[in-house]
């Protein structure tokens, strides 16, 4: 056979013009890590200001810019692109496809991200400062009362939305059309399943977000009154639209994390996932429910009581499929032969902390109790348990688990374990006390607080610095692995790992599955 499959191009051109899913996956992962560091820096500024009562480092207006950008950068810049990067690397390798279905669009969907975030970050240097209305940007604070930079924010959101929609269409097209012969839907790895469902959620709700920001643009510049009562509109309309996007959005973030955990826990338990089919159905149920629970973010806006009851009952229901998932992972571990390499440690950390976040989520679903929890640090603690310990921990697990396959080199296990324990302890010191201050009455998004909250806030800040510092160790470990890690050559890097990605050589060649694989008995 002639060598018509050339390897990667050289120089910057390789990255600018690449249509290779592995290259694009790598760029997504590095980009999201850079955003993780940027968003983390904003978080450090927030926690430094909150270290003690009184204003010390920043002004209240700038503090609000930090909370806003922290949320936006972490959600849209760090977590979402990181899972898209993972999908790019893994989905073709897991379903036996040579690449993504739409490789040129794949290139484009990545390359519009950096300009989008550049535009968002540039607002920091504009007159009036960056957006300062929270990542939920409620009108009219985000419309007629916002700094002029809000227009750049709106265009940045549009760009990120376009990127997400293109990425999702690509994933749907790939999964539907490019599975190896014999790989039926119910034989796909769970990571592929969770991403397929996530992609449908994205295609459904990103246009809604685009609609919301377009209405903001109209209200600001073209004299409409979508969100102003004075012109016949309604500020609460904004919240309904935002959360119709926003609630599915949180499942967009967590479903791929469920997929990762469902791959890793069986590998290190050396035992198949307990209930594959029920996991698929639970994922689909969660996705469906995510569309009919949005107003549980709005219990205090003054909805009619029938509305409150509907959204309360629907929200409580989510506990059922989520419970099914947690029970499944634990039953998978039961009577397995467990070992605790770094990916497994992060998955167990995920399991414990995500479950705690699920419990506080159930508490928050109870509308009358939510009147006391709403917009306090209790909510901040809740969503960091599911976002950080849920999404970020599972993403970290994924990097440790697949890095040897990607790079052909093994990371330093001791350093990985140290990273896990510092992260785990730092995370809990940061966020566990926030449950207490929230219940005791501390609102979120305030730059200064009453004296009775001082001790726990100081504790939170110390924890945050520890957690933040542990990410430098992560970066070092990954770089050291890529540059000088011990070489691994086994196709199957982990003895318990299952799936097509472990049947190709290590490191994964630039092109894989140019000929569709034959599924052996274990996969067929």
């Amino acid at each position: 056979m002639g060598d018509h499959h050339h390897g990667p191009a050289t120089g910057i051109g390789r990255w600018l013009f690449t249509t290779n899913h592995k290259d694009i996956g790598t760029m997504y992962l590095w980009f999201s890590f850079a955003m993780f560091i940027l968003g983390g820096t904003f978080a450090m500024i927030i926690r430094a200001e909150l270290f003690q009562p009184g204003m010390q480092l920043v002004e209240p207006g700038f503090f609000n810019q930090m909370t806003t950008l922290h949320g936006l950068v972490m959600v849209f810049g760090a977590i979402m692109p990181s899972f898209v990067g993972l999908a790019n690397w893994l989905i073709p390798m897991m379903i036996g496809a040579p690449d993504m279905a739409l490789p040129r669009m794949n290139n484009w969907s990545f390359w519009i991200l950096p300009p989008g975030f550049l535009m968002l970050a540039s607002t920091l240097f504009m007159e009036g400062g960056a957006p300062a209305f929270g990542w939920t940007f409620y009108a009219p604070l985000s419309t007629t009362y916002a700094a002029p930079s809000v227009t750049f924010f709106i265009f940045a959101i549009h760009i990120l939305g376009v990127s997400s929609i293109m990425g999702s269409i690509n994933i749907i097209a790939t999964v539907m059309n490019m599975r190896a012969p014999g790989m039926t839907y119910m034989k796909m790895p769970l990571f592929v399943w969770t991403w397929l469902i996530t992609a449908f959620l994205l295609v459904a709700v990103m246009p809604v977000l685009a609609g919301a920001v377009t209405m903001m643009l109209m209200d600001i510049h073209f004299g409409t009154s979508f969100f102003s009562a004075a012109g016949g509109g309604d500020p609460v309309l904004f919240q309904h639209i935002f959360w119709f996007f926003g609630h599915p959005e949180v499942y967009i973030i967590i479903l791929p994390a469920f997929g990762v955990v469902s791959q890793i826990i069986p590998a290190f338990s050396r035992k198949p996932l307990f209930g594959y089919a029920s996991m698929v159905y639970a994922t689909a149920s969660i996705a469906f429910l995510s569309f009919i629970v949005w107003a549980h973010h709005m219990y205090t806006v003054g909805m009619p009581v029938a509305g409150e009851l509907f959204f309360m009952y629907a929200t409580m229901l989510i506990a059922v499929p989520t419970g099914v998932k947690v029970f499944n992972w634990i039953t998978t571990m039961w009577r397995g032969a467990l070992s605790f390499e770094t990916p497994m440690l992060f998955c167990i950390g995920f399991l414990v902390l995500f479950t705690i976040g699920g419990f506080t989520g159930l508490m928050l679903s109870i509308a009358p109790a939510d009147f006391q929890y709403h917009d306090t640090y209790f909510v901040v603690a809740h969503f960091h348990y599911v976002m950080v310990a849920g999404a970020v921990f599972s993403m970290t697990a994924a990097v440790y688990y697949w890095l040897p396959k990607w790079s052909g080199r093994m990371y330093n296990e001791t350093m990985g374990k140290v990273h896990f324990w510092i992260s785990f302890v730092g995370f809990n010191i940061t966020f566990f006390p926030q449950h207490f201050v929230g219940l005791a009455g501390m609102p979120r998004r305030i730059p200064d607080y009453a004296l009775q909250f001082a001790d726990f806030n100081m504790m939170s800040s110390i924890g945050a610095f520890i957690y933040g510092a542990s990410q430098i160790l992560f970066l070092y470990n990954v770089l050291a692995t890529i540059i000088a890690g011990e070489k691994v050559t086994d196709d199957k890097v982990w003895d318990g790992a299952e799936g097509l990605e472990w049947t190709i050589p290590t490191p994964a060649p630039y092109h894989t599955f140019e000929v569709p694989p034959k599924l052996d008995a274990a996969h067929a």
Partner: protein
Amino acid sequence: MVGGNVMRSALMALMALPAAAFGDNQVNMSPGVTTIGAEIYDLHMLIMIICVVIGIGVFGVMFYSIIYHRKSRGVVPSQFHESTKVEVAWTVVPFLILIGMAVPATSTLLEVYDNDDAELDILVTGYQWKWKYEYLDESGENVSFFSNLATPQEEIYNTDQKGEHYLLEVDEPLVIPVDTKVRFLITANDVIHSWWVPEIAVKRDAIPGFINETWTKITEEGIYRGQCTELCGAYHGFMPVVVHAVSREEFDAWMDAKRADEAAQVAAAAVDLSLDELMSKGEAVYNAQCLACHGAQGEGGVGNAIAGSAIALGDIGTHLDVGIKGVAGTAMQAFGGQLNDVDMAAVITYQRNAFGNNTGDVIQPSDVASHKQG
């Protein structure tokens, strides 16, 4: 509620643990001083205990597995998977538990929404960054006032010792009688705010252009403190809510004094003041109302600079217009309804003569009144 009491004491014991570790820091929700607050607290504890019990079970199984099913102990992994019986059980049982939670939650929610038969109506309006309280009277003689943060800038910027109620103190608290069903009509003047007092378990968003209803009936006299809980701009963290719950007699006496005070203010507006009087009064008003946005030295910030500004040095009528009517679409509010004519005259005079704006202009309360009439 016997069940509630038993549960509460069980919980006190549970809560004693972290409390012992964290000294005087409050670690849990307060049952507060209303029956609704106590019900919400019981609901909160019920759900939390159920979660803790489930959590102990789930994590117990997990940690048993982590300890006893380790590869390093030489165990051979079992290969079992799928069991319809188990899967049906762990779907149905949680569903039944949820129904058990939904019943008390529904009944409490219906009580929270029962706004009927209020004995006193108070209109609460959120402004950037203060609250206005207006006692609605059937005769139309409403009593209203603004409630501003009373914590001095020196405490916030750490040049002075912080007081006991740092950031949770106001110049004029809301006063309401105990054992009286008080209905709050909540709205906002600019952006969305949220009015929250944890100990009376009332939190409701204040939405410009719409009026939300909620209520309370406080059973114990006392001072209860809360804060705005919806991000409303730069000084969101600086608009506390303070409620004084007093006996009916005290409340009536306070209301009479308040009405007399309003009458006195009307009389004061007819009297001319000296430049010195206007300047000292104006400084106090400036520090309470303008400083947050326009700076301690009039240097600006969220708002434009006042020192050397074209408005403060220019036409008095334009200056009065900005103060009284605000600037639409910006954080500069219409202060005409917030300040009485004396305070408005004083602060305009102050702005025109302080920070090096030595215009020498003197604006009297009567000037403000005639300007308002056009």
